[in-house]
């Protein structure tokens, strides 16, 4: 499609699988489950759908945006950084952001265009790219490509980065995007740990962040995952000017301190408070003091880390826990996918018109267990004789069927006079072979 999403239709998330109204959320006993609890949590799903939408978004062509730039097409201008408008980040050059599709691998990337630059030495670009593309840290947005192009009608420097759909800058997250995320002591600690991790990787590669402020740090996901973005481009602009790496690295520490202090100061309504006045714990204050100390020009990651060792373990803990959480959700959804396929097969073999006269599907036939199993899974009654569809029952049965466990079940004929005993494994084989023979 040339336009996505179609202009007339916004997605109606609330119609998808609405969460029950809050007053209905009675405390459940441990054995009780609601339909919601069996699937991916709505907020996580919504977030992921939005990310997918953001990735897929296509704008009508027009204006000055070129169709193809180098290896990239389908440019969609992004404006989340516009509001702050600090133009000095790139030595006074105007800069724009685009979401692009890569011609190389079809994936989505972020392209930062620095307008109207004058670069003549190809080595300026290649050496910068070489250095930055090697930086590998979970807290630094990866630089994927760097080139100079005239496709925009000027000489533009383009830096291409991994794209994090819906990621917003630290500033936007806490101060402009609705709903605002309140700043907490815990968030500050986890930002500190992650940004230290980022700086560590950058410094270790013989580089400096240089552009470190709350517009250049993006929040890419929960719980409070942050990344330094936009690295590398400014290194090119610097050109052959004399450059003191160590001094820049020391400045990074101060910038980190400033960033954190600015965030911390927003926790209270006081303005321009000193470090001592901040409503943060003492450990954090001493970290800030260390970072902001102008007299210490020998700061290093080692020293810095020793000030908050304990907090690193907290980050590890929450990160490992979240990993297990997403893995858990994922396995649930993967199961649902498998089960859906399984149900497709089951439905394909079940209830066919021709089976109504086929002796194999009669009571004495080989396919009879399939009919009984379908009944057993989907047509349950409760003890009072009422029809019920218990999704947990369906999930249990189908999961066992899919895994082909050796557990046996008793399937009863409609007249309740006879039964068949069969294992899930045998059932699975039966359904599988029936399906194969049908579709061959």
């Amino acid at each position, binding site marked *: 499609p040339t336009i996505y999403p179609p202009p007339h239709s916004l997605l109606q998330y609330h119609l998808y699988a609405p969460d029950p109204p809050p007053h209905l959320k009675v405390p459940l006993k441990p054995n009780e489950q609601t339909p919601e609890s069996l699937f991916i949590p709505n907020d996580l799903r919504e977030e992921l759908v939005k990310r997918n939408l953001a990735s897929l978004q296509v704008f009508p062509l027009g204006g000055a945006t070129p169709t193809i730039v180098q290896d990239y097409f389908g440019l969609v201008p992004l404006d989340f950084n516009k509001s702050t408008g600090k133009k000095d980040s790139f030595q006074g050059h105007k800069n724009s952001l685009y979401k692009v599709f890569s011609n190389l691998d079809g994936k989505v990337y972020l392209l930062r265009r620095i307008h109207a630059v004058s670069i003549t030495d190809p080595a300026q670009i290649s050496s910068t790219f070489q250095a930055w593309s090697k930086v590998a840290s979970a807290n630094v947005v990866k630089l994927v490509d760097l080139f100079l192009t005239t496709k925009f009608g000027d000489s533009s420097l383009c830096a291409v980065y991994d794209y994090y759909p819906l990621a917003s800058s630290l500033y936007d997250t806490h101060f402009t995007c609705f709903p605002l995320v309140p700043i907490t002591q815990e968030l500050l600690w986890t930002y500190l740990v992650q940004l230290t991790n980022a700086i560590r990787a950058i410094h270790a590669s013989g580089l400096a962040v240089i552009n470190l402020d709350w517009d250049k740090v993006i929040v890419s996901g929960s719980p409070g995952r942050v990344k330094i973005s936009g690295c590398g481009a400014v290194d090119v602009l610097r050109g052959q000017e004399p450059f003191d790496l160590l001094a820049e690295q020391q400045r990074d520490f101060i910038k980190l301190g400033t960033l954190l202090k600015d965030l911390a100061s927003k926790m209270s309504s006081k303005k321009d408070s000193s470090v001592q006045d901040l409503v943060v714990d003492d450990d954090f204050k001493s970290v800030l003091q260390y970072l902001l100390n102008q007299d210490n020009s020998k700061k290093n990651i080692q020293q810095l880390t020793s000030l908050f060792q304990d907090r690193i373990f907290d980050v590890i803990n929450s990160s490992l826990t979240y990993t297990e959480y997403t893995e858990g959700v994922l396995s649930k959804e993967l199961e649902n996918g498998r089960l859906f396929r399984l149900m497709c097969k089951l439905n394909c073999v079940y209830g066919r018109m021709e089976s109504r006269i086929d002796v194999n599907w009669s009571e004495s*036939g*080989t396919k009879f267990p399939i009919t009984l199993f379908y009944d057993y899974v989907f047509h349950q009654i409760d*003890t009072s004789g009422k029809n019920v569809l*218990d999704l947990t029952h369906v999930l249990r049965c189908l999961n066992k069927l899919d895994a082909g466990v050796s557990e046996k079940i008793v399937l009863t004929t409609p007249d309740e006079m006879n039964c068949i005993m069969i294992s899930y494994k045998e059932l699975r084989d039966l359904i599988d072979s029936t399906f194969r023979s049908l579709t061959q």
Partner: protein
Amino acid sequence: STSFTSTPEIWEYPDFVDDGDVPSVSVDDYGYPLSSVGMPYYSQKLLSAWNNVVFRSPGTIPMPIDTSIQSSAKMQVSKNGSSPDVKTYALMHYDKNKFGPRNTLQPYICLRDVRKRIASGTIPDDVLRYKPLKEGEIPPAYGKLQLSHGRYGSDNFDFQAFNKTPFSTLDTDGDNTYTNAVLQLYRFVPEVFNFVVGCLKNENFESNSLLTELGYLYDMIDRSKGTVCRSTNFQSSLNSIEKAKELGLTTTFPNDLQMLERLNIAKEKISTGPERLQRSLGQKFNEFLLTRLIEEEAGRDANSMVLKELFGFQLDSIVRSSSQHYEKSTSTVLTLTLLSPARNGFKSVGKRSGNQTILPYLESSMKRVKHINNSKLETVGYERTVKNLPPILSLNILLTDSEWNIAKSNRNWLAKDFYATMSKDKALLQPTLKDLKGNSPIFKYELNGYVAKVTDNNCESRLVTYARKYDRASDQFKWYMFNGYLAIEIEEEEALDISYWWKTPEMIIYCDAEEIRKPFFSVDTYPINCDILYRDHFANKLKESAKLEYKLLTKEEAPQPGSLVAIDAEFVILNEEMSDIDCHGVKTIVKPKKTALARLSAIRCADGPLFGVPFIDDYIFNEGPIENYVTKYSGISPGDLDLKTSSKPLVSREVTYRKVWLLMQIGCVFVGHGLSNDFKHININVPAAQIRDTALYFLRGKRYLSLRYLAFALLDRNIQEGNHDSIEDAYTALILYQKYLDLQKNGTLEHVLDR
């Protein structure tokens, strides 16, 4: 007007849809995400959205698959002729009563709540209900009984709520509890009861005698008139018998029968084929018990054959092979295994098997013919014939589950009575007299009782006893059902109904119609040998250093009904209690601690020069492992009870028990402190009228006061300074009792108690 309609109609077309050029994808392509095909725009709630419901099935314990279905299933999965890979799953019988309507979501039961309810000790109102309210239900009277000891021990347990009959029940907290059902069964066979109890008139100190212990047990059950009894000593003897251990009959396991049998099978490593019949634990015990009793009877008096004549089936076994080989042997069995007519080699000709009663099963089991093809050429025929009709028929029933299904479908399967005669070396059984012809004597048999296995939905099982007793006063028979410590009187119709899915008879006793009407005689009918009260009967050689702290009774002092005897007993712990403890520290006693009598002292109470002088001070030897001597309380030290090393004069439990039993039987009145507990551990039920328990006289509210405290407070004596000594304790209790009588006479008892 040919084929065109005059009025123009608007034609409807299906929508032409362009979903794009989507290639078809195999359902097995797991690399194809289901979100590859997008959703259309929607402005209404999706169909896939779910209502606000709550699913309660997680955690539901699945109903175990019944063995009756399983066993026939293995036989019947057949290969389809046309394609060898495809199995046809044969239809099997579905018991709707048992499993309920098809595809029913099982209700969730929270085990934690069930435990809480049981721990609370509340007894449900309908605990004695023995008829199902709805189809398939197991009535509460047949259910699993709650633990009688719970958190605090069974002293406070309300056994009376479970038994409204005049007959005593057996508690379920000891070893081998499954045997109680069999013991209860024979207790209602008059000639068995009379013989076993009658044996008590003579002294017999043979160790581990089941005959003696059964005698004491039946005597106790008889005397207790409805109060709960325990088969502790019987079980302890059973545990000591090697043969019983070999057969896997003994267990200290407090759990259900199914588990026991499973453990047994696991131990024996028997491959149990689906159709192979295995005697149950109860049936094995039944056979073992009768065999053992008869052995013991013969051991005492080689000429005595009472039990053998009551139970013995004379068997002729013949082996015939086609190669003219012929063998014949004769033997006696005490229980007859009942198989289906088909298994006994009888083709049921013309008769619909569904209408049969137990009679063809019994008749064919008394003449069993079996042919086995040894090889292609030779067939061996086995023939087993019962040659007589003993007065008591003890039958072990062994049917497959499918055979039971057929039997249970006949309401009258369990015949209440029948007539039998021997004709041409073959037993003939008929429901009525007129169906029997011939010159041989005709016997009438009546159902005396049976033991049935009750199995729950979750496959836990237990044995219950149905007993039929002749009530002389009303000249009527009454039926009783015993389930552990629960007993009820039930209608005959209910007793004979074996159609319930959860109930399966295992042992059946038919008794000669005359025998069953005989009265039950208590031991008091006979002259009783009391010698042991007047002599020593040590088990070890008396060491020179041994100092006897008692003076034997003389015949002149022979105790009379009403004679006062002060006694005290000490115990050691063989096994500590077994309990469940949950993560919050809540404890449930599953099996109370097992004790053994270690010392018993009895003191003269008659005024005179010998007042307060002990006449019994027995130390009882114990050869099994003792977990805890509780020396501080028992005064018994390790080694004291060892035949080889002990410096004490040791006697056997049987000797001491008989002394106590004789004193009770004579009608002595026992004085002591905390006697009910002592008697419980000695395993004797003494009528309340014969007990003067000082612990009960000096109650503070509901709290028992210790002997030591009472001695200090009331008698100004310091006792139990070191370890306990049963002579001192018995004496102190005696003095305390006298003090009590004094205080009561002066009317100052209340005053003293409030002090």
